Protein backbone atom coordinates (compact mmCIF):
# COMPACT_ATOMS: atom_id res chain seq x y z
CA UNK A 1 0.00 0.00 0.00
CA UNK A 2 1.33 3.38 -0.92
CA UNK A 3 1.54 5.87 1.92
CA UNK A 4 -1.05 8.56 1.44
CA UNK A 5 0.74 11.16 3.54
CA UNK A 6 3.96 11.82 5.44
CA UNK A 7 5.46 9.12 7.67
CA UNK A 8 6.47 10.57 11.03
CA UNK A 9 7.97 8.87 14.08
CA UNK A 10 6.39 10.22 17.25
CA UNK A 11 7.76 9.80 20.73
CA UNK A 12 5.86 10.78 23.90
CA UNK A 13 7.85 10.98 27.13
CA UNK A 14 7.91 12.29 30.68
CA UNK A 15 4.36 11.11 31.37
CA UNK A 16 2.76 12.33 28.11
CA UNK A 17 2.59 8.72 26.95
CA UNK A 18 -0.19 8.24 29.51
CA UNK A 19 -2.39 10.34 27.22
CA UNK A 20 -1.80 7.91 24.31
CA UNK A 21 -2.62 4.54 25.84
CA UNK A 22 0.77 4.43 27.65
CA UNK A 23 2.58 3.92 24.35
CA UNK A 24 5.70 6.01 23.86
CA UNK A 25 6.53 5.30 20.23
CA UNK A 26 4.05 5.80 17.39
CA UNK A 27 4.76 5.44 13.67
CA UNK A 28 2.12 7.53 12.00
CA UNK A 29 1.15 8.45 8.46
CA UNK A 30 -0.18 12.00 8.41
CA UNK A 31 -2.36 12.99 5.44
CA UNK A 32 -1.73 16.39 3.93
CA UNK A 33 -4.56 18.89 3.95
CA UNK A 34 -6.03 19.36 0.47
CA UNK A 35 -3.98 21.95 -1.35
CA UNK A 36 -1.17 21.99 1.23
CA UNK A 37 2.33 21.79 -0.22
CA UNK A 38 3.83 20.15 2.84
CA UNK A 39 3.33 19.20 6.47
CA UNK A 40 4.09 21.66 9.26
CA UNK A 41 4.08 21.17 13.04
CA UNK A 42 0.80 23.04 13.39
CA UNK A 43 -0.92 20.43 11.20
CA UNK A 44 0.77 17.58 13.06
CA UNK A 45 -0.50 18.86 16.42
CA UNK A 46 -4.06 18.98 15.05
CA UNK A 47 -3.66 15.48 13.71
CA UNK A 48 -2.34 14.17 17.04
CA UNK A 49 -5.15 15.81 18.96
CA UNK A 50 -7.73 14.20 16.69
CA UNK A 51 -6.16 10.79 16.21
CA UNK A 52 -3.89 9.94 19.13
CA UNK A 53 -4.80 11.71 22.35
CA UNK A 54 -7.42 9.58 24.04
CA UNK A 55 -7.93 11.53 27.24
CA UNK A 56 -7.35 14.90 28.89
CA UNK A 57 -6.28 16.80 25.72
CA UNK A 58 -5.67 19.86 27.93
CA UNK A 59 -2.67 17.98 29.35
CA UNK A 60 -1.14 18.02 25.88
CA UNK A 61 -2.33 21.20 24.17
CA UNK A 62 -3.21 24.76 24.99
CA UNK A 63 -4.74 26.79 22.17
CA UNK A 64 -3.14 25.59 18.96
CA UNK A 65 0.26 24.80 20.53
CA UNK A 66 1.49 22.43 23.25
CA UNK A 67 0.78 23.25 26.88
CA UNK A 68 3.45 24.99 29.00
CA UNK A 69 6.06 22.58 30.34
CA UNK A 70 6.23 20.44 27.19
CA UNK A 71 9.41 20.46 25.12
CA UNK A 72 9.05 19.69 21.43
CA UNK A 73 12.03 18.24 19.58
CA UNK A 74 12.24 17.75 15.83
CA UNK A 75 15.09 15.41 14.94
CA UNK A 76 16.65 16.00 18.36
CA UNK A 77 16.46 19.81 18.12
CA UNK A 78 14.23 22.14 20.10
CA UNK A 79 11.47 23.29 17.73
CA UNK A 80 12.20 26.89 18.72
CA UNK A 81 15.28 26.54 16.53
CA UNK A 82 13.30 25.46 13.45
CA UNK A 83 10.26 27.75 13.55
CA UNK A 84 8.00 26.38 16.27
CA UNK A 85 4.49 25.76 14.85
CA UNK A 86 5.73 26.55 11.34
CA UNK A 87 8.50 23.92 11.38
CA UNK A 88 8.34 21.95 8.12
CA UNK A 89 8.34 18.19 8.49
CA UNK A 90 9.71 15.70 6.01
CA UNK A 91 9.24 11.99 5.50
CA UNK A 92 10.72 9.94 8.39
CA UNK A 93 11.32 12.94 10.66
CA UNK A 94 11.20 12.17 14.37
CA UNK A 95 9.18 14.39 16.68
CA UNK A 96 9.55 14.05 20.46
CA UNK A 97 7.13 15.52 22.99
CA UNK A 98 8.50 15.49 26.51
CA UNK A 99 7.03 16.83 29.69
CA UNK A 100 9.61 18.45 31.92
CA UNK A 101 10.21 16.47 35.12
CA UNK A 102 10.63 17.97 38.59
CA UNK A 103 11.17 14.90 40.73
CA UNK A 104 14.33 13.94 42.53
Amino acid at each position, binding site marked *: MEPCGTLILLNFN*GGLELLCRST*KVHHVDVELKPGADGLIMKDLLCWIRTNLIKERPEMFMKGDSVRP*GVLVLVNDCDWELSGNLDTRLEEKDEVVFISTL*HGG
Partner: protein
Amino acid sequence: PTASVCGLTPEMIHRYSRHLLLPSFGVDGQLNLSKASILVVGAGGLGSPIAMYLAACGVGCLGIVDGDNVELNNLHRQIIHTEAYVGEPKVKSAAATCHAINSTVRVVEHREALLASNALDIMSQYDVIVDATDNLPSRYMISDCCVVLNKPLVSGAALGLEGQLTVYHYNGGPCYRCLFPTPPPATACQRCSDSGVLGVVPGIIGCLQALEAIKVASSIGKPLSGRMLLFDALSGHIRIVKLRGRSLNCDVCGENSMFTRETFQSFDYENFTQSPFFPSSNEGLQL
Protein backbone atom coordinates in the same frame (compact mmCIF):
# COMPACT_ATOMS: atom_id res chain seq x y z
CA PRO B 1 58.28 18.98 43.28
CA THR B 2 57.91 21.29 40.32
CA ALA B 3 56.12 24.62 40.14
CA SER B 4 52.99 22.95 38.77
CA VAL B 5 52.58 20.94 41.97
CA CYS B 6 52.19 24.17 43.90
CA GLY B 7 49.11 24.07 46.02
CA LEU B 8 48.85 20.28 46.14
CA THR B 9 49.93 18.74 49.44
CA PRO B 10 51.59 15.31 49.49
CA GLU B 11 48.34 13.85 50.84
CA MET B 12 46.42 15.34 47.93
CA ILE B 13 48.94 13.97 45.46
CA HIS B 14 48.44 10.53 46.95
CA ARG B 15 44.65 10.69 47.34
CA TYR B 16 43.93 12.16 43.91
CA SER B 17 46.72 10.40 42.02
CA ARG B 18 44.25 8.85 39.52
CA HIS B 19 43.00 12.35 38.65
CA LEU B 20 46.48 13.80 38.34
CA LEU B 21 47.43 11.11 35.83
CA LEU B 22 44.73 12.30 33.42
CA PRO B 23 46.23 14.53 30.71
CA SER B 24 42.93 16.38 30.23
CA PHE B 25 42.37 16.93 33.98
CA GLY B 26 45.69 16.74 35.79
CA VAL B 27 47.12 19.12 38.36
CA ASP B 28 45.27 22.15 36.99
CA GLY B 29 41.90 20.40 37.12
CA GLN B 30 42.49 19.23 40.68
CA LEU B 31 43.69 22.67 41.81
CA ASN B 32 40.64 24.33 40.25
CA LEU B 33 38.39 21.81 42.03
CA SER B 34 40.12 22.34 45.35
CA LYS B 35 39.46 26.08 45.09
CA ALA B 36 35.82 25.70 44.05
CA SER B 37 32.72 25.79 46.23
CA ILE B 38 29.59 23.94 45.13
CA LEU B 39 26.12 24.04 46.66
CA VAL B 40 23.86 20.99 46.39
CA VAL B 41 20.20 21.92 46.89
CA GLY B 42 18.42 18.82 48.17
CA ALA B 43 19.91 15.79 49.92
CA GLY B 44 17.52 13.27 48.39
CA GLY B 45 17.67 10.85 45.45
CA LEU B 46 19.66 13.17 43.21
CA GLY B 47 21.61 14.87 45.98
CA SER B 48 22.93 11.59 47.42
CA PRO B 49 25.39 10.63 44.65
CA ILE B 50 26.06 14.29 43.82
CA ALA B 51 27.28 15.11 47.34
CA MET B 52 29.21 11.83 47.70
CA TYR B 53 31.09 12.16 44.39
CA LEU B 54 31.78 15.87 44.94
CA ALA B 55 33.20 15.11 48.38
CA ALA B 56 35.22 12.16 47.06
CA CYS B 57 36.71 14.11 44.14
CA GLY B 58 38.07 16.87 46.37
CA VAL B 59 35.99 19.98 45.77
CA GLY B 60 37.17 22.71 48.14
CA CYS B 61 33.87 23.49 49.84
CA LEU B 62 30.66 21.51 49.58
CA GLY B 63 27.41 23.06 50.81
CA ILE B 64 24.27 20.99 51.32
CA VAL B 65 20.89 22.59 51.91
CA ASP B 66 17.75 20.65 52.87
CA GLY B 67 15.14 21.04 55.62
CA ASP B 68 13.81 17.48 55.67
CA ASN B 69 14.49 14.53 57.95
CA VAL B 70 15.47 11.06 56.74
CA GLU B 71 12.55 8.64 56.36
CA LEU B 72 12.69 4.89 55.84
CA ASN B 73 11.04 5.14 52.43
CA ASN B 74 13.85 7.44 51.26
CA LEU B 75 16.44 4.72 51.65
CA HIS B 76 15.57 2.78 48.49
CA ARG B 77 17.25 5.57 46.50
CA GLN B 78 18.96 8.05 48.85
CA ILE B 79 22.17 6.10 49.37
CA ILE B 80 23.88 8.84 51.33
CA HIS B 81 21.62 8.07 54.32
CA THR B 82 21.66 4.99 56.53
CA GLU B 83 19.02 3.37 58.71
CA ALA B 84 20.77 4.83 61.77
CA TYR B 85 19.84 8.35 60.62
CA VAL B 86 16.10 7.77 60.11
CA GLY B 87 14.37 10.70 61.86
CA GLU B 88 17.51 12.87 61.80
CA PRO B 89 18.01 15.89 59.51
CA LYS B 90 19.06 14.86 56.00
CA VAL B 91 21.78 17.50 55.94
CA LYS B 92 23.37 16.14 59.13
CA SER B 93 23.27 12.59 57.75
CA ALA B 94 24.63 13.63 54.35
CA ALA B 95 27.43 15.69 55.87
CA ALA B 96 28.48 12.78 58.08
CA THR B 97 28.75 10.48 55.06
CA CYS B 98 30.72 13.04 53.05
CA HIS B 99 33.07 13.67 55.97
CA ALA B 100 33.67 9.92 56.40
CA ILE B 101 34.63 9.66 52.70
CA ASN B 102 36.85 12.73 52.65
CA SER B 103 37.68 14.59 55.85
CA THR B 104 39.77 17.12 53.90
CA VAL B 105 36.72 18.67 52.25
CA ARG B 106 34.90 21.47 54.04
CA VAL B 107 31.23 20.46 54.26
CA VAL B 108 28.78 23.22 55.17
CA GLU B 109 25.40 22.19 56.57
CA HIS B 110 22.42 24.42 55.73
CA ARG B 111 19.73 22.69 57.78
CA GLU B 112 16.74 24.57 56.35
CA ALA B 113 14.57 24.61 53.27
CA LEU B 114 15.86 26.90 50.53
CA LEU B 115 13.30 29.67 50.03
CA ALA B 116 13.23 33.04 48.28
CA SER B 117 13.90 34.60 51.69
CA ASN B 118 17.24 32.83 52.32
CA ALA B 119 18.36 31.78 48.82
CA LEU B 120 20.35 34.92 47.95
CA ASP B 121 22.24 34.72 51.21
CA ILE B 122 23.03 31.00 50.90
CA MET B 123 23.64 30.71 47.17
CA SER B 124 25.89 33.78 46.98
CA GLN B 125 28.49 31.85 49.02
CA TYR B 126 29.09 29.29 46.21
CA ASP B 127 30.57 29.20 42.71
CA VAL B 128 28.34 26.50 41.22
CA ILE B 129 24.75 25.56 42.16
CA VAL B 130 23.34 22.07 41.68
CA ASP B 131 19.54 21.70 41.66
CA ALA B 132 18.65 18.34 43.20
CA THR B 133 15.19 19.32 44.43
CA ASP B 134 11.90 17.56 43.82
CA ASN B 135 9.36 20.30 43.15
CA LEU B 136 8.46 22.91 40.58
CA PRO B 137 8.53 26.16 42.63
CA SER B 138 12.07 25.34 43.80
CA ARG B 139 13.19 24.85 40.21
CA TYR B 140 11.97 28.31 39.14
CA MET B 141 13.31 29.89 42.33
CA ILE B 142 16.79 28.37 42.05
CA SER B 143 17.10 29.27 38.37
CA ASP B 144 15.98 32.85 38.97
CA CYS B 145 18.41 33.20 41.87
CA CYS B 146 21.27 31.85 39.72
CA VAL B 147 20.52 34.51 37.10
CA VAL B 148 20.33 37.26 39.70
CA LEU B 149 23.64 36.13 41.23
CA ASN B 150 25.15 35.15 37.85
CA LYS B 151 25.98 31.57 38.86
CA PRO B 152 25.93 28.46 36.64
CA LEU B 153 23.19 25.94 37.49
CA VAL B 154 23.47 22.17 37.01
CA SER B 155 19.90 20.91 36.90
CA GLY B 156 18.68 17.31 37.05
CA ALA B 157 15.34 15.63 37.52
CA ALA B 158 14.08 12.06 37.76
CA LEU B 159 10.63 10.56 37.97
CA GLY B 160 9.36 7.08 37.37
CA LEU B 161 11.83 5.51 34.99
CA GLU B 162 12.96 8.69 33.26
CA GLY B 163 15.50 11.40 33.90
CA GLN B 164 16.55 14.77 32.47
CA LEU B 165 19.72 16.84 32.82
CA THR B 166 21.06 20.18 31.60
CA VAL B 167 23.20 23.15 32.64
CA TYR B 168 21.43 26.53 32.79
CA HIS B 169 22.75 30.08 32.64
CA TYR B 170 26.26 29.07 31.67
CA ASN B 171 28.39 30.73 29.05
CA GLY B 172 25.51 32.65 27.50
CA GLY B 173 23.15 29.66 27.47
CA PRO B 174 19.46 29.68 28.40
CA CYS B 175 18.00 29.78 31.91
CA TYR B 176 15.07 27.65 33.11
CA ARG B 177 12.62 30.44 32.26
CA CYS B 178 13.97 30.74 28.70
CA LEU B 179 12.76 27.16 28.19
CA PHE B 180 9.68 27.30 30.36
CA PRO B 181 8.42 30.91 30.53
CA THR B 182 5.00 29.72 31.73
CA PRO B 183 4.63 27.05 34.42
CA PRO B 184 2.72 23.91 33.50
CA PRO B 185 -0.78 23.43 34.91
CA ALA B 186 -0.59 22.17 38.49
CA THR B 187 -2.30 18.92 37.47
CA ALA B 188 0.68 18.09 35.24
CA CYS B 189 3.16 18.12 38.14
CA GLN B 190 4.07 14.77 39.56
CA ARG B 191 6.44 14.07 42.42
CA CYS B 192 8.38 10.94 43.31
CA SER B 193 6.20 10.68 46.40
CA ASP B 194 3.06 10.60 44.25
CA SER B 195 4.16 8.66 41.22
CA GLY B 196 7.10 6.60 42.35
CA VAL B 197 10.64 6.40 41.05
CA LEU B 198 13.02 3.52 40.48
CA GLY B 199 15.78 4.23 42.98
CA VAL B 200 18.76 3.93 40.67
CA VAL B 201 17.34 6.40 38.11
CA PRO B 202 18.05 9.49 40.25
CA GLY B 203 21.37 7.75 41.00
CA ILE B 204 22.30 7.85 37.31
CA ILE B 205 21.10 11.44 36.83
CA GLY B 206 22.80 12.53 40.09
CA CYS B 207 26.16 11.08 38.99
CA LEU B 208 25.80 12.88 35.66
CA GLN B 209 25.04 16.11 37.57
CA ALA B 210 28.17 15.62 39.68
CA LEU B 211 30.17 15.22 36.47
CA GLU B 212 28.75 18.44 35.00
CA ALA B 213 29.44 20.30 38.25
CA ILE B 214 33.04 19.01 38.19
CA LYS B 215 33.44 20.07 34.55
CA VAL B 216 32.14 23.57 35.27
CA ALA B 217 34.13 23.97 38.51
CA SER B 218 37.41 22.67 37.08
CA SER B 219 37.03 24.23 33.62
CA ILE B 220 37.45 20.97 31.71
CA GLY B 221 35.45 19.58 28.82
CA LYS B 222 32.22 20.79 27.30
CA PRO B 223 29.41 21.15 29.84
CA LEU B 224 25.84 20.27 28.83
CA SER B 225 24.77 23.88 28.26
CA GLY B 226 22.25 24.49 25.47
CA ARG B 227 21.80 20.72 25.36
CA MET B 228 19.61 18.41 27.39
CA LEU B 229 20.13 14.75 28.19
CA LEU B 230 16.96 12.63 28.19
CA PHE B 231 17.15 9.19 29.77
CA ASP B 232 14.63 6.36 29.53
CA ALA B 233 15.59 3.52 31.87
CA LEU B 234 13.10 0.96 30.60
CA SER B 235 14.15 1.02 26.96
CA GLY B 236 17.75 1.96 27.74
CA HIS B 237 17.57 4.97 25.42
CA ILE B 238 19.61 8.08 26.06
CA ARG B 239 19.48 11.06 23.77
CA ILE B 240 21.17 14.43 23.97
CA VAL B 241 19.16 17.13 22.23
CA LYS B 242 19.95 20.67 21.18
CA LEU B 243 18.05 23.37 23.06
CA ARG B 244 17.15 26.93 22.09
CA GLY B 245 19.62 29.62 23.13
CA ARG B 246 19.06 32.29 25.72
CA SER B 247 15.84 34.20 25.00
CA LEU B 248 16.32 37.95 24.64
CA ASN B 249 12.75 38.35 25.85
CA CYS B 250 13.19 36.19 28.95
CA ASP B 251 11.50 37.78 31.97
CA VAL B 252 14.54 37.02 34.10
CA CYS B 253 17.71 36.76 31.98
CA GLY B 254 16.47 38.73 28.94
CA GLU B 255 17.88 42.00 27.66
CA ASN B 256 15.23 44.19 29.21
CA SER B 257 14.73 42.16 32.36
CA MET B 258 13.57 44.12 35.38
CA PHE B 259 14.13 41.12 37.63
CA THR B 260 16.33 42.26 40.52
CA ARG B 261 17.31 40.87 43.90
CA GLU B 262 14.36 42.73 45.34
CA THR B 263 11.94 41.26 42.77
CA PHE B 264 13.35 37.84 43.56
CA GLN B 265 12.96 38.09 47.31
CA SER B 266 9.32 39.09 47.10
CA PHE B 267 8.36 36.74 44.25
CA ASP B 268 5.69 34.21 45.26
CA TYR B 269 6.87 30.97 43.64
CA GLU B 270 4.11 28.82 45.06
CA ASN B 271 1.50 31.15 43.63
CA PHE B 272 3.33 31.43 40.30
CA THR B 273 3.48 27.66 39.85
CA GLN B 274 0.24 26.87 41.72
CA SER B 275 2.28 24.18 43.39
CA PRO B 276 3.67 23.88 46.93
CA PHE B 277 7.34 23.81 48.01
CA PHE B 278 6.52 20.94 50.33
CA PRO B 279 4.36 17.95 49.51
CA SER B 280 1.42 17.34 51.79
CA SER B 281 2.24 14.93 54.61
CA ASN B 282 3.16 11.54 53.22
CA GLU B 283 0.06 9.49 52.83
CA GLY B 284 0.25 5.76 53.24
CA LEU B 285 0.60 3.75 50.08
CA GLN B 286 -2.70 2.35 48.86
CA LEU B 287 -2.13 -0.98 47.17
